[in-house]
């Protein structure tokens, strides 16, 4: 860490307020909530076919299960289909039925809701529903979807393109044509599942007497869920309350609104009984959004010195059968080109991008969205270019990284970078990783080949309303809010328009507010995840919390602090400008005169002999909204060392170093933890994770036996240092940071593997990198020992 240790709560390694109840098993995740009497337990009957016509549904068999019942599309005729994308240029407007009536479009599409007195009986009943399907040919891959005569997943998108965009900057063609070197390659991502350890689930209750509808849902976006329930079911937002209880991991997969949430409410209202659905792991693999089935074709033009002249990319994203809500079908295809330019200085940029429909599970946001694959492509090309031009990998990056003098900088995709320290970050990362000494480690073990990789990445965080408007995502407000209410005791509650799935909001936001209020973080109770308690906002996704909601938290704390100073000035007969709030007191600087914060708060609530200053309102209570005007862009340099066992092709990550810059750090312990977790969510897709479909579109990986996740044995220790370049465009100088670990891990591991393979003359450009593939290269391409 640069600089002296922080004096106040902002910047402190404060252990988390959320821990004790989680550690004692006292948390309440969705499936832990005691259900109201009369609750029906739901199982969603899912299509076993990727593409089929429904000829008939016979639910008469469930009569054998006492109390069981089945709802199909025919029972809920008033339910309109979802329309994920809006009629804007580049988008095809398609429909997603909540329950399929005539046609299913992926293995996992919902056909019926089966309900019974307990979850075991509901599973039994689901077995007894007979659906007559006529299977139809399925489109599974990007190639199939784009082939001539492929057929269409949606009538409204005959060519299967759900979203397209194409941009060429002025002067591109000339710059590209003039460059002496052009490097070309196509990079292929692996289709992955998020696997939040807690699967999705929800509990719906309708109270007709109160006309109140409540949904508890394992979601990252309670307000957006509420908005969709109102939009689809025609309910008044004042009568709908959505609560995210403790949530066991999100990472983006729970940032979408899913059919099950809407269907649970529809069923509860229809039947007059609470309805609970606790999804299992198979539900999760089949129905929770998949991610990063993407490819990037890159053409990188450089001058003779290895300086970038112009880049053209062609991006394809397999969007699956439907766009999601609220991110639509453009989430990955739009995000790919937007994030691609990274920390580099180049102006001539051309891209074409398409989101393509197939008969597979819908794709959606997952940590970093398209960026890990975008950087795998960019950094992969930088490595190739360096090799071709005879430059070291660090040198080619130095020649292209943005420098201090470049800022503020608007990159080729129109994103503003306020400030960064890319060169310093790189230098520090090379030192931390002992990059120069790697030659001494390379041949340390005769049974292994070793490589070292580097990746310089950026992470676009904290998007506000302008970004979401520009992306055509009108269902995402982009704003956040905080209600800060100091009670007469001098303690405060801080209700934030977000939810936390492990990111430590209850601690971080308390630290951010405490800095201004002069009270310890322990005296600030953060409340989140309940639309009846939290002010309106967008939710937790896209590394927005510390910037977007943090902006609201700081603004609210400033407003209350100002008012406290006015009251304290009145009590102490001093100028408010001379008052500081610290250590539980309001004091007049340099005089020794002070009152307690509690005294100030009691005065504000008319509980003391002396009143508030003339003209001042009572109370210490405010709600502030924040709209982040520009995204804030964090940066990191990752260095990884891998070994490949010659006999087996097994890859081991030997060392891993990161130098990270996300502006001012609120709680370094939490930030480090976020980076660690994010790195492992990149290590998995790079080395092992992959969702596999057969040619009929059947998902073959629906258990954790088939879908391999990293364990403690696969993960190295991670060395990390921070550079804190305070952001200029945000409140508090902070930047978001939850995704950068993943964005860096995939390119750096591929870079290290390719470095190990250099003597064998092979370049890998697809993930996951498999042992058998490496073994084949090592055996069949002995290559030349590196001179």
């Amino acid at each position: 860490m640069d600089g002296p240790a922080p004096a106040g709560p902002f910047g402190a390694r404060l252990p988390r307020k959320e821990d004790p109840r989680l550690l004692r098993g006292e948390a309440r995740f969705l499936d832990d909530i005691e259900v109201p009497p009369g609750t029906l337990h739901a199982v969603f009957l899912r299509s076993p076919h990727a593409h089929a016509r429904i000829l008939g549904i016979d639910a008469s068999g469930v009569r054998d299960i006492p109390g069981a019942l089945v709802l199909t599309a025919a029972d809920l005729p008033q339910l309109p289909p979802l329309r994920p994308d809006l009629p804007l240029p580049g988008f095809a407007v398609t429909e997603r039925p909540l329950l399929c009536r005539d046609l299913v479009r992926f293995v996992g599409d919902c056909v019926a809701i089966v309900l019974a007195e307990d979850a075991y009986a509901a599973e039994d009943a689901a077995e007894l529903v007979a659906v007559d399907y006529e299977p139809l040919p399925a489109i599974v891959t990007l190639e199939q979807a784009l082939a001539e005569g492929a057929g269409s997943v949606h009538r409204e998108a005959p060519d299967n393109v759900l979203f397209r965009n194409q941009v060429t900057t002025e002067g591109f063609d000339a710059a590209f044509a003039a460059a002496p070197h052009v490097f070309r390659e196509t990079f292929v991502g692996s289709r992955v599942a998020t696997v939040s350890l807690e699967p999705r689930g929800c509990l719906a209750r309708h109270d007709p007497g109160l006309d109140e509808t409540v949904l508890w849902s394992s979601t990252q976006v309670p307000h957006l869920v509420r908005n969709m329930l109102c939009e689809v079911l025609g309910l008044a937002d004042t009568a709908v309350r959505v609560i995210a209880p403790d949530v066991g991991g999100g990472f983006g997969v729970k940032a979408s609104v899913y059919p099950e949430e809407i269907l649970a409410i529809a069923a509860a209202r229809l039947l007059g009984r609470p309805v609970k659905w606790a999804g299992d792991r198979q539900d999760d693999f089949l129905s929770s959004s998949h991610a990063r089935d993407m490819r990037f074709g890159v053409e990188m033009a450089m001058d003779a010195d290895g300086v970038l002249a112009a880049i053209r990319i062609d991006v394809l994203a397999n969007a699956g059968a439907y766009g999601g809500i609220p991110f639509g079908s453009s989430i990955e295809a739009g995000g790919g080109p937007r994030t691609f330019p990274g920390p580099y200085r180049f102006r001539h940029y051309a891209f074409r991008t398409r989101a393509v429909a197939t008969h597979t599970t819908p794709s959606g946001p997952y940590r970093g969205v398209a960026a890990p694959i975008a950087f795998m492509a960019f950094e992969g090309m930088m490595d190739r270019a360096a090799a071709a031009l005879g430059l070291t990998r660090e040198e080619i990056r130095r020649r292209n990284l943005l420098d201090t003098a470049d800022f503020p900088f608007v990159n080729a995709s129109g994103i503003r970078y306020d400030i960064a320290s890319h060169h310093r970050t790189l230098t520090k990362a090379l030192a931390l990783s002992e990059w120069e000494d790697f030659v001494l480690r390379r041949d340390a073990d005769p049974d292994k080949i070793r490589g070292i990789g580097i990746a310089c990445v950026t992470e676009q965080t904290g998007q506000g309303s302008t970004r979401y408007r520009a992306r055509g995502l009108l269902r995402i407000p982009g704003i956040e809010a905080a209600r800060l209410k100091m009670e007469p005791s001098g303690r405060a509650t801080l209700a934030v328009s977000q939810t936390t799935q492990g990111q430590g909001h209850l601690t971080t936001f308390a630290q951010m507010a405490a800095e201004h209020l002069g009270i310890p973080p322990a005296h600030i109770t953060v409340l989140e995840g309940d639309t009846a308690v939290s002010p309106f906002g967008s939710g937790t996704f896209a590394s927005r919390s510390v910037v977007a909601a943090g902006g609201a938290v700081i603004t609210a704390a400033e407003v209350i602090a100002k008012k406290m100073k006015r009251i304290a000035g009145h009590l102490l007969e001093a100028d408010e400008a001379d008052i500081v709030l610290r250590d539980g007191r309001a004091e007049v600087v340099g005089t020794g005169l002070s009152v307690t914060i509690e005294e100030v708060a009691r005065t504000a609530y008319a509980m003391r002999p002396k009143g508030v200053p003339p003209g001042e309102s009572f109370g210490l209570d405010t709600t502030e909204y924040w709209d982040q005007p520009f995204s804030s862009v964090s940066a990191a340099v990752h260095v990884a060392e891998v070994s490949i066992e010659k006999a087996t092709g097994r890859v081991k990550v030997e060392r891993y170093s990161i130098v990270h810059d996300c502006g001012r750090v609120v709680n370094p312990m939490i930030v480090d933890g976020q980076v660690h977790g994010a790195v492992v969510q990149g290590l998995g897709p790079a080395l092992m994770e992959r969702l596999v479909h057969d040619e009929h579109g059947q998902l073959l990986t629906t258990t954790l036996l088939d879908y391999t996740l990293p364990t403690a044995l696969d993960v190295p220790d991670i060395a990390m240092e921070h550079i804190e370049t305070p952001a200029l465009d945000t409140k508090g100088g902070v930047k978001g940071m939850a995704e950068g670990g993943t964005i860096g891990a995939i390119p750096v591991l591929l870079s290290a593997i390719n470095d190990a393979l250099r003597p064998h003359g092979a370049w890998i450009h697809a993930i996951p990198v498999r042992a058998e593939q490496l073994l084949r290269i090592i055996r069949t391409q002995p290559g030349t020992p590196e001179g």
Partner: protein
Amino acid sequence: MSTVEITVTVNGSSRTRRVPDRLLLADFLRHELRLTGTHVGCGHGVCGACTVLVDGATMRSCLMLAVQADGASITTVEGLAPPGGLHPVQQAFHELHALQCGFCTPGFLASTIELLRENPDPSETEIREALHGNICRCTGYVNIVKAVRRAAELMRAG
């Protein structure tokens, strides 16, 4: 559906219940006894979130029937420390930020307690080997490994 009467000692108190013969131990603990600290992440024996101590040994409660636990003594996360307190392993997880969402945590605590009973001073490799049957999606394991070492120190000291 046939039911069976079972008696299980859970966190020190004896509980007798008539349960369906197919009821999973995880569901028995969670829904019959309302000890919801034991979590189900996969239901098929891979993730380790449902791990509890049965007669002192780690078991996946999603792979075991409640009737198989008849006569056994079970410790769940709720029984690791006296009310309001923290077991040294819990304390170390807190100090070193070894949990984020906390969904995997009860399983890791059980596996750690078993490890440290058998090996009070494990090396980093031994820790990683002992925990490789527990999946965490949040922490990247980095701080979990550190916390286990810290817990070993705390327990040896105390």
